[in-house]
């Protein structure tokens, strides 16, 4: 009975919502990191570990 119920219920919708959610997050990250004028900023960020000499 339960098995039938599980089969009948469209749970796959949840999976689809999950996928959409993921792509939304993914796309926003992409848009965010390519925002205007960010190149210089990221370049600076990537040098943080190297800013101090050897300790």
């Amino acid at each position, binding site marked *: 009975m339960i098995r039938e119920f599980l089969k009948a219920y469209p749970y796959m919708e949840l999976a689809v919502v999950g*996928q959409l959610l993921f792509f939304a997050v993914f796309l926003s*990250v992409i848009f965010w990191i390519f925002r205007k004028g960010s190149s210089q900023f*990221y370049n600076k960020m990537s040098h943080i570990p190297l800013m101090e000499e050897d300790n």
Partner: protein
Amino acid sequence: MNSTVNKYDFYDDEIVKKFVIATVCWGLIAFLVGLVVALQLADWRFNFGLPWITFGRLRPLHTNAAIFAFAGNAIFAGIYHSSQRLLKARLSSDLLSNLHFWGWQLIIVSAALTLPFGYTTSKEYAELEWPIDIAITIVWVIFAVNFFLTIKNRKEQHIYVAIWFYIATIITVAVLHIVNSIAIPVTFLKSYPVYAGVQDALVQWWYGHNAVAFVLTTPFLGLMYYYIPKAVNRPVYSYRLSIIHFWSLVFIYIWAGPHHLLHTSLPNWAQSLGMVFSLMLWAPSWGGMINGLLTLRGAWDKIRTDPVVKFLIAAVTFYGMATFEGPLLSIKSVNSLAHYTDWIIGHVHAGALGWNGFLTFGMLYYLVPKLWKTNLYSVKLATTHFWIGLLGIILYIMAMWASGITQGLMWQAMDDSGNLLYPDFVETVIRLVPLYYVRFVGGLLFLLGFLIQIFNLTATVLQANKEKVKDPVAKGSRIPFKDVISESSHRSLEGLPAVFSTLVVIAVLVASAFSLIPALFTPTKMSAKSIIRPYSPLELVGRDVYIREGCYLCHSQQIRTMSSEVLRYGPASTMEESIFDHPFQWGSKRTGPDLARIGKKYPDLWHYRHMMDPREVTPKSLMPAYAWLAKDKISFDLIPKKLRIMQQLGVPYSEYEIDNSIETAQMQAATIAKELHEHGAPSGLEKTEMVALIAYLQSLGQMSIKPLEVK
């Protein structure tokens, strides 16, 4: 020391040193115990007939020591060292740092003092019992407070990507640990989890998979993003890629847990969701690997000359390999072959030895000379360590691939008329023994390399100048908060730890909610009551013996929905059948056969003889002997309490059953003991755990009130 010197002008490297030393010591123990359990699988005699060092008790000790003691201390050393420098601030509080350090070591010691004696929850990588779980929570909060206060005190405006990985680790591990460990205590060192059966399986593997993600992956990625640029003196290849890497991992990893439960009784759509998200993990993981490797651009010669770079680059390559294999193993058809076999063990060790081990070794070779202000004692020895270790890992992985695929194929092999080619399970095990020795040699080489490292690092420390030189905190350029708001280029998410942490929490919680939703759609105990009966009091005691001895580490209790499984073990397991199981015992590895329907397959006496000495009934068996069970007495007086707690958790025991549980148990024990005695076993077994275990085994697969629907 001059009293006018402010200690906050210097980094706290004493705490880093402590964690470094702890990493080395626990690493040695984790690897040694690993070697012992490897030998025990090659030859059962290495169990020595002693309860506290049998395979089922030592294996959790090995995994916990490797994950939480070795990798754990390595993470703390690396996080405390790199964060201070990235944030340009001393750790916020020496007291908190030390509480963190000593608290964590105390937790490890208590793990070492409980696991071998059978105090375990049986939830993999969360085996520690409830008082230790509480201690872990407290120490973790101390760590978090110390870390976030340091971020608050920072002199560097921007928060480098490594710190994000650390933040995600701290937040997510807290959520995972607390949710998975909720349990009701029975005694000081025994508890029952609030979840049962398929729900418990789902929560456990949501935890188990994300322990891999947020203890063994994200913190190490943070370390990678700091130590590789440091070692080659170049910024990371693409900072943008590291951000994509970060968000994709935080968001996707959490969903992937159900790939540990493919072809089980978990609803199919939940399995598919787990599989799809696991496949998606491939992209960000490889993005991260490429980002790490290409950081070396223009400095490739360093791989040849600098042992630190050698280790770090090999580690990143293993990260790539393991994260390629992981999604592959999540594909249902591949999984049907690989699951429950040694292939998974090989996969884990590609990650643990190659990625976590080598990254830690590289970090240690970098840190120890820096912390003790000297040069590495011998580059040559470090290079030797590298090659020996690499050879060890390769042997290990190859042996496990061969063993896993062989066994997987043998389980499924059928002849023309549709019968199993190897109906006798033990045949599929003895075939693997030579490979178990190869694995042992691989592990031995890995350990040998580590011993060389210990020697090398000790010599480095000994040659160091005894005078203590402290590293001053670098000058920072942090702008007061109000100016940040007005200056647009700084108004970036990356500089706002509070907003950022909130986003991480949201991502983790949303994904967790989604991946735990299936648990809401499983049958309820109420609805199952008419289909399945709960365990009798004696069976429940036997089940606790089964948990204590770690039988679940060699035996699954979940017949998958595959024809070869159904042929071998009987109808596939249903969700209802484990609904009263607090905790579930589905297992993850079959060194022995599945036991979900072992009940009534053999007479009691067979089990008695098998438990006393498995070789007596199955000549080539690898299973340890459990002769002490015929001596150890059952604590009958605990039974009512156990039933009461089960009742609180929703298992349908009546008041009458609880009130009379001691007598019921004694009666069932007496019946079994009498029959055993009549067939030639010694008398007096009715008070021993042996009869309880036999009662439990005989109940497996025999609990349905209505006959099972056969599909």
